[in-house]
């Protein structure tokens, strides 16, 4: 089947999509956007998190056909005009990236939380990111990064 939707503001189209394909597969293998990651394909790790019509979801659990006509934002679309989004910069600065496989999903989830809750407590951060597994960092530097991004955001930096 053919699937058409918007990714990071650009209309995209994929042909010959098998009906069982996920949005994640279409992004990665058909649209050349492999930033969303394929760590578990069962909604248990958050590495494939994208925004679907503004809401963070696991793209591995969205059937490709369900994305028809929708707006998708992936990690590739977080920054603007070649600039990193504040949360992206904070992940680098705080040492929150090791292997980096969980990073795209965490960034989409953290970016969404910071928009909804600009001054999160530590427990708010933990709850918002509890659907994103990381195996390298023990999450401490991720906490640091989100705190840093929140602080920079509130200072208007």
């Amino acid at each position: 089947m053919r699937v058409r939707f918007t990714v990071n503001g650009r209309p995209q189209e994929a042909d010959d999509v098998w009906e069982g394909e996920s949005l994640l597969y279409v992004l990665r293998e058909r649209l050349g956007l492999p930033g969303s990651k394929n760590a578990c394909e069962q909604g248990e790790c958050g590495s494939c998190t994208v925004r679907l019509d503004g809401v963070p979801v696991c793209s591995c659990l969205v059937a490709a056909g369900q994305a028809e006509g929708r707006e998708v934002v992936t990690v590739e679309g977080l920054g603007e005009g070649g600039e990193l989004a504040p949360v992206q910069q904070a992940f680098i600065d705080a040492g929150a990236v090791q292997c980096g496989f969980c990073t795209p999903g965490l960034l989409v989830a953290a970016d969404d939380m910071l928009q909804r809750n600009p001054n999160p407590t530590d427990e708010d951060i933990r709850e918002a990111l509890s659907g994103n597994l990381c195996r390298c960092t023990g999450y401490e530097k991720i906490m640091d990064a989100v705190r840093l991004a929140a602080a920079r955001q509130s200072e208007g930096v």
Partner: protein
Amino acid sequence: MDFLRPATWEEALAAKAEHPSAVPIAGGTDVMVEINFDHRRPEYLLDLTRIGDLQTWDTVPGGDAVRLGASVPYTRIMENLRGELPGLALAAHTVASPQIRNRGGVGGNLGTASPAGDAHPALLAAGAEVEAESVRGTRLIPIDDFYTGVKRNALAPDELIRAVRVQKADGPQQFSKVGTRNAMVIAVCAFGLALHPETRTVRTGIGSAAPTPIRARTAEEFLNAALEGGGFWDNGKIITPSVAKRFAELSAAACNPIDDVRGTADYRRHAVGVMARRTLMWTWEAYRATGRDAHRKGEVA
């Protein structure tokens, strides 16, 4: 595999009538895992996400129940229905992860009818009816009759779940779930409890501790009698430890669990007992603190 994309509810019903084997997909949290892991290859996928009505809720005429669209995401339930459906809102908060809660709804839990579905104990405790519809018409299936076996429900092959009608809370409700992780975990077992001061009854729901979600009926009957007999609804006394203990024992005894990779049968029974006792104390304390005066006057808290 064919992908059906009905734009309206009527089209969806027609499609389901034409292809009874079609698998409805909304949040995708069950169906897509099965497809990704090659456990299932449905002939037809019936996408329900284009049907806006499924994602809304309203009050049933008469005002005592919420008609909750099958695809209202758990996040919305948590955020918007905490007052009317507190037990379900608490259960919604324990569902998987924020990403899943943004996408999954009660219709998926009901359709899959896994004993581990988080919504079931809350629906059983609150009292609910499943609004099932086909081209033949609509019927309301009481939640107590809905679960018919392991991952089986009372839906006919041509029926879809339109909504669930959940009684608005007339008293405190609680939900607890045991998992071996502090977030993003499938229930080892779960317990829902709702006090219904208007009818002076208590209802329960147990998840993952029997082939289907169940109520602990003997425990409910015992507690109803104990509360009534002791005049607790009126005098608002603290529930005695012996009553709480007996309620816990009877709740545990209602279980018919199995040993599996997530937990042992004995542990499930034990944990259901502990959750029964705790949720009883929490709800009763809430009733004593806020609900009692209101109900004396016959009002809803």
